């Protein structure tokens, strides 16, 4: 297990390297630059700026320089947010994004699994169809529609919850963005759980349990253990989707997370900020996939890593 973990971590290095390389050159070859303002800067100023940020050197030297600094954990200064390094910006925004993402993932997982099991136990009944219809709506309605609608209903019409902002991270501020972010994933998880639960309930060992007269609750628990496997393997993509979703949700609910950095960075050609966000996200996804695989092994005795 430990050996497998280490090997997986080692194999993440080339993956990250490819990502960094592709992103670096993609960003650099995009037309425009970080100092293209509406009123062009004086040539001397521009020269000075370019020299300060090492942009006057050949591209391959800049690339090697960036890699060398990256290995030491230095993401460089931001070109647009003056006096801030990218590291500082990410550290400032990450707590909000992680808190939001974690609560959304928890909500999606708990409610999604409960709804899926509920529907699977009543397969082809009206309740089953109702749950699945709601889940399909959840998959198809984009979260930038859900967000404003929630704001309109609960913030403006009922006046129950704040429209946006993070406050101190209290529950009232968290509820709406968490729901809007969790809804699509919740729907996917519910659909997944339902279909795998139906399959699990038909399995031979469950039939044996039933024949032996186990109570319903125990049977569900046994079936659920097998049924959760596809859900666990979906958690990797789900986490990645939550990260993307939070770009929209943070914008709608005015949450000062890292979601806005990427889009703004790309639009402003803030090279280091874009790169920093890419590196952070890629490491996050790689790490999360590793956790999912380890979890998978813990749940399924047939999977062994050695």
């Amino acid at each position, binding site marked *: 297990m430990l050996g497998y973990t280490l090997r997986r971590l080692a194999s993440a290095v080339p993956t990250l390297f490819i990502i960094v390389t592709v992103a670096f050159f993609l960003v650099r070859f995009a037309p425009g630059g970080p100092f293209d303002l509406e009123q062009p800067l004086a040539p001397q100023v521009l020269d000075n700026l370019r020299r300060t940020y090492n942009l006057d050197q050949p591209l391959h030297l800049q690339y090697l320089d960036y890699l060398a600094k990256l290995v030491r954990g230095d993401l460089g200064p931001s070109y647009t947010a003056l006096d801030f390094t990218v590291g500082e910006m990410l550290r400032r925004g990450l707590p909000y994004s992680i808190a939001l993402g974690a609560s959304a993932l928890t909500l999606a997982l708990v409610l999604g699994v409960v709804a899926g099991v509920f529907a699977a136990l009543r397969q082809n009944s009206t309740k089953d169809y109702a749950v699945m219809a709601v889940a399909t709506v959840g998959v198809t309605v984009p979260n930038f529609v859900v967000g404003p609608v929630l704001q309109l209903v609960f913030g403006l019409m009922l006046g129950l919850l704040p429209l946006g902002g993070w406050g101190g991270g209290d529950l009232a501020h968290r509820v709406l963005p968490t729901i809007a972010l969790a809804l699509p994933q919740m729907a996917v998880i519910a659909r997944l759980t339902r279909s795998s639960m139906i399959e699990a309930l038909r399995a031979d060992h469950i039939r044996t349990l039933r024949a032996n007269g186990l109570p319903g609750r125990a049977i569900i628990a046994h079936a659920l253990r097998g049924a959760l496997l596809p859900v666990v393997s979906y958690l990797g993509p789900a986490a990645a989707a939550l990260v993307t979703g939070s770009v929209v949700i943070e914008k709608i609910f005015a949450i000062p997370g890292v979601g806005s950095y990427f889009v703004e960075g790309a639009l402003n050609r803030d090279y280091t900020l874009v790169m920093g966000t890419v590196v952070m*996200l890629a490491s996050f996804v790689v790490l999360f996939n590793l956790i999912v695989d380890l979890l998978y092994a813990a749940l399924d005795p047939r999977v062994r890593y050695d």
Partner: protein
Amino acid sequence: MTDASLTSQGGTAARGRSLSTLALQRLKRNRAAVASLIGLALIAIFCFLGPFLSSHPNDRVYQSYVAVPPSLEPYPAAATLERTMQRALERARVDMGDFSASGTTFRVTLTSPRPIDPRVTRYIDRVDEFDDARVVETLEEGRRLVVEGTVQRQWFLMGTDMSGRDLMTRIMVGGRISLIVGLLATLVSLLIGVAWGAIAGYAGGRIDNVMMRFVDVLYSLPFVFFVILLVVYFGRNFVLIFVAIGAVEWLDMARIVRGQTLALKRREFVEAAQALGVGTGGILRRHIVPNLLGPVVVFMTLMVPKIILLESFLSFLGLGVQAPLTSWGVLISEGANNIQSAPYLIVFPSIFFVSTLFALNFIGDGLRDALDPRDR
């Protein structure tokens, strides 16, 4: 399902029902899928033929009807006509005498201390409500004109947007873009994914290993962010953007196709082809790819809504198609910005958007169930 085409070509006469007929029958019995197919066809007809039948060009701005709510009654309302005429004449610097409107015609008397230039009717025509204004009577040496013309009646069944453009026409035009973009990107991903997966699966061994390792590496890229970079890079040429999206979304397709190919290449008819000396390319084209059709079609129907969602996501971030073109994503995000003052702006595009995604999902699920060989 893998030998659907085989069975349908020969040996079916005895049993009378081929596997593909069975699948079609199962699909027909799935009422949700059939309803979705019909609904999707209607939406496509609405989007592609609608703009030709609509009385409003999609980029025509009606300054008199900015953000008017949806209504089955034609605009303008009779009560507002006199006020509108007064404002038009104020701009022309003449005074308004009697005004009367009946049905689709109006009659107005203009007065002024000085003789009035008959070209003043242009000021009246310029307003969206009135048309064909002409002088019918000149009195008091031109200081008093009687003008007649028609009242232009306009229907805005879904209202107009914040710039005064007909929302229904914009939904049609936006739907075209969304649907085309979804199909285009899916086709690109289909071509790359099927070719990649079929070659990897059929070649096997080291080639397969290298090709699928490459797919694994790509899997851990944060895709949406690469798409955003591509959008910035291509300068918002939306066709290129979606070719690019298709080019990064082919990974799942490649995996599915590879798995199927691995199973297929052990089949007798492939061995027979090999024994007959058919080349690798020939076997792939003639025997492998046609038999992959089932899972590929299912995957395609589920891919289109994903791409449409992605397009709307980009549009929401302001990275989508540019005005005066539009897409459902653009319309929805405009609606989200004005949700309080004009909620219908988000309601109508969302209805079309969500029903399309709904239909595609149901069709995909239905096809999967119908083609599933285990469920016979």
